[in-house]
Structures are given as structure tokens and as C-alpha cells.
């Protein structure tokens, strides 16, 4: 572009926005090292005591594992069902294809609170207790539309020819799907899984409504907060932040290294 605004006002705007965006993050991390009892100024010398407290909180570390389990299982289910539905509709377009698409995508338009509430009432009426499994079920409801939409949007004419080519050369349904379609679609399948995991990991209200004693991480943080605003929450929050970033970096580097792998 030949008509760029000069660097200085641009730089200032960007700096200002980034300051605003990072303010709470900085406060979070800074006061996790607080040696005093309150996560507010003045900050007394750096101390790791709150990290020790957080990591020795069994319920906290337990909720971390719960979050990973719920996230992994629900994301896997959403990704698999979403992929099959997208591929199925793509291969054979039944007359009801448009209606099916609307049905599968509709949960996106509904607030998580309503999804959670609906499930809670149904489970209650059916006598099914609240549990992590219930939370997982709820998370699949909110993630399935996304997986379906993402994968469906990537199925184009070029893929149709590849699908036809595989069948032309003698591959049956399963061989075509496993040897050709899934490998070619792997980037969007992985992206769907990662997005679902991220949303599940961070999800609060459905987890609150549908869990009982065993909780996920966001609900645990909420519990901690209700007990009192101490730097332990900061420490827990910072730990979550670091885990998330490390996971993202690992996932990103895996996707960059992928093309070199032998088929």
C-alpha cells in the first residue's frame, strides 16, 4: 500500500491497545508472586508460596485433570461426529441436506446458559445425576456445530474429484475415507479438535450447572474466588495460562513439522 499512515501514530495506537489488552494479564502474573496476603499493591518481594499452595491443593490439581479429560473426550466426540456428518452430506446430498445443516449448526445461536439449563432440567427429570460425563455431553452440544461447520466449509469440488479418483481406482467407502479423505482433511480436523478443546477447557456455565463434586478448572477457580481473594487464585490462573501457551506452542510446532512425515 502506498498510502500508509506514518509509523508513529500507528505505533501509538497499537501500543495503547496492547496495554489495554495485557493489563489484567500483567496484574495476574505480577501478584502471583506476592508475598503478602492480598493480591493488590503494594507488592512485597517475590515469593513462590502461593504457587506451592496452589499446587498442593489437591482439588485444584484434580480439577485440572478433569478439565483435560472432559476436553479431550468431548472434543474427540464432536470432531468425529462433525466430520462424519460433513463428509456424509458432502458425498450424498439428500433432499433434506439444507434442513440437516441448519439443525446441526443451530446450537451456535443459543446461549451456553440455555444449553446447560436445558440439559440440567432434562437430567434432573430423568433422575440422572450431575457429573463430569454430563458436562462432557454439554460440551459436545456446543462444539459439534463448530466442528461440522469448519470441516464442511473445507469440502469443495477439488476434494470431490479426489474422492472420485480414489473410488475410480478401486477404493471402497472405508478405504477412501481412511486413506484419502481423512489425511487430506487432517488440518481442518485437527483445527476443529483444538478449537473444541480450547472452548471446552475455558467453559464455565455448563460445567457449573452439570457438575457436582468433581469439577472442571474454571468452576474450581470460581470456588477459590468465593473462598476469598488471595494470590492463590493468581498463582492458579498463571499456571493455567502457562499450560495453555505451552500446549498451543507444541500444537503449532507439530503442525509445522507434519508435512515431512512419511505417509
Amino acid at each position, binding site marked *: 500500500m502506498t498510502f500508509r499512515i506514518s509509523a508513529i501514530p500507528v505505533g501509538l495506537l497499537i501500543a495503547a491497545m496492547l496495554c489495554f489488552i495485557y493489563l489484567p*494479564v500483567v496484574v495476574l502474573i505480577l501478584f502471583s508472586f506476592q508475598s503478602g496476603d492480598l493480591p493488590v499493591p503494594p507488592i512485597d518481594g517475590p515469593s513462590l508460596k502461593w504457587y506451592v499452595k496452589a499446587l498442593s491443593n489437591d482439588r485444584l490439581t484434580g480439577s485440572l485433570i478433569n478439565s483435560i479429560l472432559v476436553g479431550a473426550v468431548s472434543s474427540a466426540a464432536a470432531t468425529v461426529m462433525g466430520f462424519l456428518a460433513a463428509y456424509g452430506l458432502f458425498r*450424498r446430498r439428500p433432499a433434506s441436506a439444507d434442513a440437516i445443516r441448519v439443525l446441526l449448526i443451530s446450537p451456535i445461536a443459543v446461549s451456553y446458559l440455555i444449553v446447560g439449563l436445558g440439559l440440567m432440567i432434562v437430567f434432573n427429570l430423568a433422575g440422572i445425576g450431575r457429573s463430569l460425563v454430563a458436562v462432557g455431553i454439554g460440551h459436545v452440544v456446543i462444539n459439534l456445530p463448530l466442528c461440522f461447520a469448519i470441516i464442511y466449509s473445507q469440502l469443495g469440488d477439488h476434494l470431490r474429484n479426489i474422492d472420485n479418483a480414489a473410488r475410480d481406482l478401486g477404493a471402497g467407502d472405508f478405504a477412501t475415507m481412511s486413506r484419502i479423505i481423512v489425511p487430506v482433511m487432517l488440518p481442518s480436523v485437527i483445527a476443529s479438535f483444538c478449537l473444541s478443546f480450547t472452548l471446552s477447557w475455558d467453559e464455565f456455565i455448563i460445567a457449573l450447572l452439570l457438575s457436582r463434586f468433581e469439577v472442571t478448572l474454571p468452576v474450581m477457580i470460581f470456588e477459590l474466588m468465593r473462598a476469598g481473594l488471595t494470590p492463590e487464585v*493468581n498463582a492458579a490462573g498463571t499456571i*493455567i495460562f502457562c499450560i495453555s501457551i505451552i500446549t498451543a506452542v507444541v500444537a503449532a510446532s507439530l503442525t509445522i513439522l507434519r508435512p515431512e512425515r512419511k505417509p
Partner: protein
Amino acid sequence: MNRKPVDAAQWLAWPAILYTLAFFVLPLAVMVCVSFWVRRSSGLEADWTIDNYVKFFSRPYLITALLNSIEVTLITTALSVVLAYPFAYVLAFHVSPKWQKLVLLAAVLPFWTSYVVRSYSWLLVISDNGILNSFLLWTGLIATPIKIAYTRAATVLGFVHFFVLLLTLTLYANLVQISPSYLKAAEDLGASRWSVLWRIILPLSIPGIAVGAFLTFVITIGDYITPQILGGNTEVLLPQAIMLQIVRSANFPMASMMSLLLMLLILAVYGLFHRHLKMDRL
């Protein structure tokens, strides 16, 4: 007529269809029914009455919750768009490509703090003895701490922070795909930077803004945690009112009714905007 060869593909969509029907459509249908029931001390009675609906509109505090929700959501949506658009615009057109990626990455990083944790962090920032007040007191700009925490402003702040992040990304993605040919043509015909922005870029980004605004609206109006942590009890929004019905009296009928109201609100807004929202292009 020739027989069509059998293809397993027709069965592939069924798991997703059945799942959605069982765990999404069914609960919604149940909620509609339950909204006509009543919670009594003896238990849940299937009375089939519109009592709950009447009750809602005759209780001022519930109507206030609804109106508050609408107000807060509109303010949040407007502020978020107004803040995010210039940022996205500058990134898309006035920063060199390699810096774009870097700044975006930096802007996205805070996403990885948990949503609950972020609201909590803002509480720390704005509370009476938090970092903001401490700084202002230290510089002498104010004499006593400004009360921001546990007010509507705090709730809006928490929301806007999240949505500026989200909207910057979506608006940037939208702006970047505007063909550079349009801009070159406008430039070639003598348009200034401002004209290009006002007459070409802005009109072309309206669908993107509409989608972003709609998303912001829908997520905000149904959000429980941000107003709960930051807003305190001075003001109750609709999601909090719904949760109170559950937590205090397990009043499923009332909660269902209010949830349906929330959904109708969202559908109404979708109806208003659906011309701009091409959901089938998802």
C-alpha cells in the same frame, strides 16, 4: 429407472443428527413445557399454567433485570466495535505483513488466560485498593479511590476487554480479504486515505461488522460470569436472575420461562440482522 448404487454415506450424518436432537432439541422442548409448570413446596407440578409468564411481567425487579441486560449488551457491543475496528483497520492496511502477524499473535495471547481468571484479574485492577486506584492516588490525580468495581462500568469493562480481542480478530480477517485491487483502483482515481476508508473499506466490511456485532450481542446477553464477578449485587442482569431462580429455589419453571425469553430476544435480533448474516456460508 436405474437403481442407484448403494452408498454408506447416507448413514454418516446420523450420529450427529441424533445427538443434536437428543441433547439439544429435546432439552429445549422440555424447557418450553416446564415453563408452563409450577414449582411448589411439594415439588414440581405439571399445572400447565401461564403463571410464570404473568409473574415475570408483574415483578419490577425481573423486568429491570431484562432491561439492564439489554442496555449493558448494547453498550458493550457498540463500544467493542468502535474500539476494535480502528485497531483491525490499522493492522490490516497500515502495518507491514510481518508485523501484522506478530501483533495479532501478541493480541491473541491473553485469550489463553481462562475467562473466569480474566474477570477476576480485572477485579484486581479496578478494585479500591487495586492497581488502577493505587496509581491514580500515587500521581495525585485523585484524592480518594474511584469506585469502579462492582458497578455496571466494571461489567462493561470486563465484556469490552474480551470482545475487543475477539472482534479485532474477526474484523481483521474480514478486512484482509478485501481485494487490494479495489483499493488500488480507488487510489488511482484520486481518493485520499480517508475517502478510501469511508467509501470503500467501511461499506465492504459491513457484513463482517454485522456478524461481529451479532456474536457480541448473543454472547454478552447470555453471560453469567462477568456480571457476577465484576458487577456485584448493585445490578442484576437476566442470566444472574435466572441462576438465582435455580440456586435459591430450584424453580425450574421460572428459570425455563426466563431462558425462553432470552432465546426469543436473541432470535428477534437475528431476525433483524439476518440479511447480513449469511449463516449458510459458515
